[in-house]
């Protein structure tokens, strides 16, 4: 199998996973955020008894319901795709990676799906307070499920709390708490759920603004905007803080990703941050001229990455070719070290099957040697390809996605502040220009959200497990045509369903909160 070119298979497999993940992420962030907004609105209803609040709650709940089902549909594929398309990965790290997925099901999905039925159908069947509790539990359940899948994702980016067992040829968990509370996991979770809150707030404001422009559902719109802009402003500020936390961690655990995010080729002290830039083509970038145009904030990259404006930041070239002065190994060196680790594993397996137990035992003990772990096993994944370029992620995609995300993130803070101000001054219905802008912010929120995942996932290529396992060694050995067929099957299905979802959503918005209670 090693002699066959695996490139088409890997490309199709990655494309299929990216397709599923990106479709999934079109629907999940709204669920993560709007469930909190709904729960808050319903709390006000239960506290005040004002039927208008029930109507408002029911209206957003209806839109949430339309969105929810398709998120579930795309989610199931993601979970099983680890097995179907990344089976070698599933064995190599299943001992660690499977646990959060199972916990997600037991702890979160049941909570969410049980209480969602009460939320939608229980108005007349359970007490008001129990219904309210159910709405909060749906929000908690949705966000708990995000916690576990993000713990799993963070572990791929920063494999903590694990050790390699040569006997089983896989990584095994050694500390559950290190996996759960790894700083990357905690930060990723907070950053991701707050991004969902921001998106949901923009969604609510956008639709409410449209009603105000059309001069309908005025009370619903004004109240919704007030709640959403307070909620959105808090979330967007927290989003910036957790984003900063993410950058610091990426600098530490995935320096190549950081360099790609910034199009940063030549390492230096007091490195500046590119605020806006246009990249040159690959030849020029490799020749030391990465930008056709850029506006740079001096020392900012050092400051944001390491909290020190003078700190050295490694560039792509340092990471590729090594920088002995800074203690950075070159990729060829890492390849050599990784090959030693792989060869040791092969020798161990050969000794075992030859029945040479003495040799097998001594080779096995090598894997427990701290020096071997530090120097060789930590570079295990580099032993799979000699191609230097294979270890550099796609710079333009990572760079532009990162910059789009950050710029939009800051724009959202200003946007929420503005809407909160208008709302506080009672000026909203008069601010026609801003009301007209608001619906257009919705697609931008989705773009920012997707861009965030593109940075996280494209930026870490080729690793499925940082430094330990590249995509080439993770993929299921299928005929690439097979994966192409399933890619097309899912692409068509998801696209058709997404069109249906958007059309239904637009109809429901046009229809408004008519016949949605408001009587008790």
């Amino acid at each position, binding site marked *: 199998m090693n002699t066959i070119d695996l490139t088409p298979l890997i490309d199709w497999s990655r494309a299929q996973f990216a397709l599923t993940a990106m479709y999934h992420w079109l629907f999940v962030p709204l669920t993560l955020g709007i469930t909190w907004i709904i729960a808050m609105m319903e709390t006000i209803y239960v506290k005040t008894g004002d039927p208008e609040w029930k109507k408002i709650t029911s209206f957003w709940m209806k839109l949430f*319901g*339309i969105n*929810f*089902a398709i998120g579930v*549909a*795309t*989610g*199931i*594929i993601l*979970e099983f795709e680890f*097995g179907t398309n*990344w*089976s*070698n990965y*599933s*064995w190599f790290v*299943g*001992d*660690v*990676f*499977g*646990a959060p*997925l*199972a*916990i997600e*099901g*037991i702890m979160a*999905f049941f*909570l969410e*799906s*049980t209480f969602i*039925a009460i939320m*939608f*159908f*229980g*108005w*007349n*069947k359970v007490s008001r307070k*129990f219904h309210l509790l159910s709405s909060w539990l749906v929000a908690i359940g949705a966000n708990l499920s995000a916690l576990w899948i993000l713990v799993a994702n963070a572990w791929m980016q920063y494999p903590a709390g694990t050790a390699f067992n040569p006997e*089983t040829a*896989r990584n*095994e*968990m050694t500390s*559950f708490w290190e996996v759960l509370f790894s700083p990357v996991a905690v930060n990723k979770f907070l950053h991701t759920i707050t991004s969902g809150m921001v998106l949901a707030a923009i969604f609510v404001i956008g639709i409410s603004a449209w009603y105000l422009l059309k001069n309908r559902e005025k009370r619903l719109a004004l109240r919704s905007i007030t709640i959403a802009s307070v909620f959105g402003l808090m979330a967007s500020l927290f989003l910036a803080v957790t984003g900063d936390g993410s950058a610091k961690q990426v600098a530490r655990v995935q320096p190549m990703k950081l360099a790609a995010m910034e199009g940063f080729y030549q390492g230096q002290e007091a490195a500046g941050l590119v605020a806006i830039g246009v990249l040159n083509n690959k030849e020029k970038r490799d020749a030391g001229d990465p930008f056709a145009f850029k506006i740079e904030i001096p020392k900012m990259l050092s400051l944001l990455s390491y909290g020190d404006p003078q700190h050295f930041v490694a560039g792509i070239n340092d990471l590729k070719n090594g920088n002995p002065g800074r203690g950075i190994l070159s990729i060829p060196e890492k390849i050599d070290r990784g090959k030693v680790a792989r060869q040791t*594993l092969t020798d161990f397996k050969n000794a*075992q099957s030859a029945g040479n137990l003495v040799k097998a035992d001594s080779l096995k003990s090598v894997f427990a040697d701290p020096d071997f772990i530090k120097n060789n096993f930590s570079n295990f994944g580099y032993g799979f390809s000699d191609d230097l370029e294979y270890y550099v992620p796609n710079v333009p995609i990572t760079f532009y996605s990162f910059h789009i995300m950050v710029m939009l993130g800051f724009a959202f803070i200003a946007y929420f502040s503005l809407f909160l101000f208008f709302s506080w001054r009672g000026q909203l219905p008069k601010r026609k220009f801003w009301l007209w802008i608001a619906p257009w912010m919705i697609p931008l929120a989705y773009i920012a959200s997707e861009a965030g995942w593109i940075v996280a996932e494209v930026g870490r290529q080729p690793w499925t497990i940082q430094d330990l396992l590249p995509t080439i060694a993770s993929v*299921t*050995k299928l005929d690439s045509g*097979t994966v192409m067929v399933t890619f097309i099957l899912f692409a068509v*299905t998801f696209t*058709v*369903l997404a069109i*249906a*979802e958007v*059309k*239904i959503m*637009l*109809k429901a918005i046009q*229809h408004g909160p008519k016949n949605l*209670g408001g009587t008790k």
Partner: protein
Amino acid sequence: MFETLSLTVLQQYWWIIISLLGSALVFLMFVQGGQTLLGHLGKNETERSLLVNSLGRKWEFTFTTLVTFGGAFFASFPLFYATSFGGAYWVWILILFAFVIQAVSYEFRSKAGNFLGQKTYETFLYINGLLGTILIGVAVGTFFTGSLFSLNEMNQVSWQGPARGLEAALNFQNLSLGLAVFFLSRVLGALYFMNNIDEDTIFTRSKRHLLINAIPFLVFFLFFLIRLMFIDGFTYNPETGIVAPEKYKYLHNLLQMPLILIMLLTGVAGVLYGIGSSLLKAKSTLGIWFAGSGTILTVMSLFMIAGFNNTAFYPSTFDLQSSLTIQNASSSKFTLTVMSYVSLLVPFVIAYIFYTWRAMNKKQISRDELTSEHHLY
């Protein structure tokens, strides 16, 4: 507390949890069965709406159980996850596809602007009911009949089956289990409608379809079960891990584990009683509970004879020594211990599901509810 248990005990504990989830899934597939009966039981728009809304409050339980079943299998027996999902690719992909189109169909079916039209979404529900049940049955069938694969020394799978898993459907033993699951899900679906819907015409038709589907269910299930008693199984030596064929293995398993035999017989009796009492009594609505608990006991006992008593639960007939057993396919002791603590949540989950189910099903769904409720499928 779990730290003191041996790896073997933890592996068995987790096989029991997998069996429980698998059996709960088969019971909850009354939703799938019900979906394939929509056209037979609902002769007009109101009746079909009653049926869809009745199922629509439960479909997520089935879906979530499937997802949790997958996740729990991954966490506790990752080698199965890697081998079967990556190997029997087409079977699993088609199962997934059948569930993708289900998830949206309830919500989208009757909504304005749904792009594909109501009929299409009802067809999606039918496909889900048909493919989902049969293929899951066929996939579980291979736990007994085996598959064609080998694992290398790094435990990486290479699948030898010509159709990436679909070849399993050509084996009549697997197919009969698939068809048994399909007809069982329809039996359970009919029983669920009898329990949940306050509409005489639907009750009468459900009763008729209960009989129509109970017969093929019994034929396929009994064929599967009786033949299972006579086929070769695969046994492993717990000391060396070496796998060897054994004549009448599954019969031996039942005889050597009498508790499981009792479970199986009780389960089958429960299913039969649920069906029989519902057919014979004029207005029985409780059949679903007897048949449902019977289903859970029966399926659990099948999983247990597939994995316990030193049996390879995912045999490879291509390379016997690549067969998966609960011993060689499991997670590490550490992970199983962690997961065992997590499993302590399961009783709470069952408790709140039970509580909310009762709250929601206290009153049967009726025409009145279709007009008073503002969230409808």
